[in-house]
């Protein structure tokens, strides 16, 4: 009789095992969601940084849109901000056109060169539209030929153009 375990003991053990199992199960089921959210956060942050760089940076050199066709090696960074006015959220139409031309280029540059100049490691897509007109006019549509992914985030910014019109810049980043 003395060596036998009591009913209370078994009961306590069962409760403990239940507790540990439920905790474990919760962690197991939560982990994929958690890691996806962390990745989402990183991508959102990256999308925001790319949008800030495009909107509020003039690029390097500031007149890259004039030299990129002949001296691409001199272009170190892309930015769409109007260097003459140097105001936040004000985009140069000339730079937007040059950015689109560079991305659409069939040379061994195009989209990959844009990725390199923006230092983007993941896949990304940029859409710039002029919304002043009734049906939005696409000024930049820069995306790879094919893309598929599990995780993808978008950010949409509202911007003004140096010709007095306004529009939206949509940056999408995925992994």
């Amino acid at each position, binding site marked *: 009789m003395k060596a036998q375990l009591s*009913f*209370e003991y078994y*009961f306590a053990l069962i*409760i403990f095992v239940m*507790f540990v199992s*439920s*905790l474990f199960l*919760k*962690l197991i089921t*939560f982990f994929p*969601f*958690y890691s996806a*959210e962390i990745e*989402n*956060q990183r991508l*959102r942050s990256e999308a*925001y940084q790319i949008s800030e760089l495009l909107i509020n940076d003039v690029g390097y050199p500031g007149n890259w849109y004039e030299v990129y066709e002949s001296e691409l090696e001199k272009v170190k960074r892309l930015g769409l901000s109007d260097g003459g006015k140097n*105001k*936040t*959220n*004000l985009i140069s139409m000339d730079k937007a056109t040059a950015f689109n031309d560079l991305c659409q280029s069939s040379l061994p540059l195009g989209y990959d060169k844009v990725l390199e100049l923006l230092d983007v490691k993941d896949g990304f897509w940029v859409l710039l539209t002029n*919304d002043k007109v009734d049906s939005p006019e696409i000024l930049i549509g820069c995306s790879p030929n094919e893309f598929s992914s599990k995780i993808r985030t978008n950010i949409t*910014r*509202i*911007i*003004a153009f140096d010709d*007095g*019109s*306004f529009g*939206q810049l949509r940056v999408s980043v995925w992994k």
Partner: protein
Amino acid sequence: MKNKAFVSILEIIAVIIILIVAFSIFSPGFFYQNRWEQAFISLKGRDLVLTLDRIGNLYQYSFDERFLRDFLDKMVPTNLTNLIHWSRVQGTIKPKITVACACTKEQRDALINWIGRLKINGRNIDFDIVSSGLDPIYDTSDVLLIWGDQKLDDFKIKTNIQNYARANKGIVEIRDFDGQGDLDDVQKNIFGIDRCDRVFPGKCGIGGTTEISFEPKPDSATRKTYTSFKYFHSIPLPISTTNEVPSFNSGQLSSCTSPPNVINEGVVEIRDVRHKFWICNGETKSVYFDTEGNPDEADIIAVNGDKFTIDNQELLLRYIESNVIGISFESGYMFTNFLDGGTKLYPKDEDQSRILLSKGTYTNTQNPIPASIVNDDVSRVAWVSDFTKDLTKVGDDHKMLLVALMLWTSDKRYVSGLSNLRLGHLTSYVNVNNIDMYEVYRFDLGLGFPF
């Protein structure tokens, strides 16, 4: 034994319940909460306001809700984003000013007739003039106009006026104080004025000056008289024409080449003298003025932005429309006397910088004889000597003075209509405009998720 087992089972059941409750408390479901929604609203608000500024529409949209709503509906449509928006402006003149006029019907009708739609920095400002008593005061107004001799020392009226001022609304009083006893508490404590002989006994003789001027001039923007001084000299007063004429006598000037029936004739009344003018709606709009008081004969032509002189006072033609012109008074403008001889007042605290208009100085002193005194101890209030004794002889300079005082005193706070949002963010932006006058205000754009 039987009972003992029963008790154990009860204990076990109790323990199970306690443990289940403890599990649920100490081990709630895991969830990950990011703040992206807040960041999204904040970013959208900033982008929208900056974009409005960059395309040069922020000023117009700040005061015209219709244009702003169209823009926002296009850029952040509620059906796609679930965002609702609202806006408000603070620190500048409202697009519509409600004046509670404690006055007679004749005075109210005259006021409606005098003050039309103002155009400041390219936007319109309308006056809504409503009759009001002093008990109660029409409290949804922005400014209270107390016109003429009115008994203000009644306890209830005094309390109403004090409460009105405490609500940050303005008060303008048009009144003379000739032949009356001591001033009442409202005059002393709210308007901050007293009889000269109580402030400076024996030093209140009236000198020989017959003109009223903006003396002492505000020497800094922090002076209490600065804003009304600025409004008087910067805001164009609209003067409408009265009739169309086929032609007019242009004297020595080149004649108006306007097609027939598009010459509009009007009258500008400056320093108690009526001067005719004619708007010539030719290829370039121009205005012919009679500045020398020769009725029906023009002696100068002015186009938009021209300065011209009438009775030695320099005026500026701010705008010309087909049947209305906007003129403003240049610095140094002097009124003909409208101060009643017996009205000898002075700021109760001897603060000269509260005197907006004066008629020279009291004899053998450097103390100005006030024709208008302002105060902003409680709220913005102004007293001005009665220039409306004859309602038919009120000039355009007097009208502009009244407009400047009402604009300065008026309530400049806007009430936001939205609250209790699930999540919202207000983006504030200080904007500046300087077409007619330097105007600084705060624009707030609110974005939020209602659900």
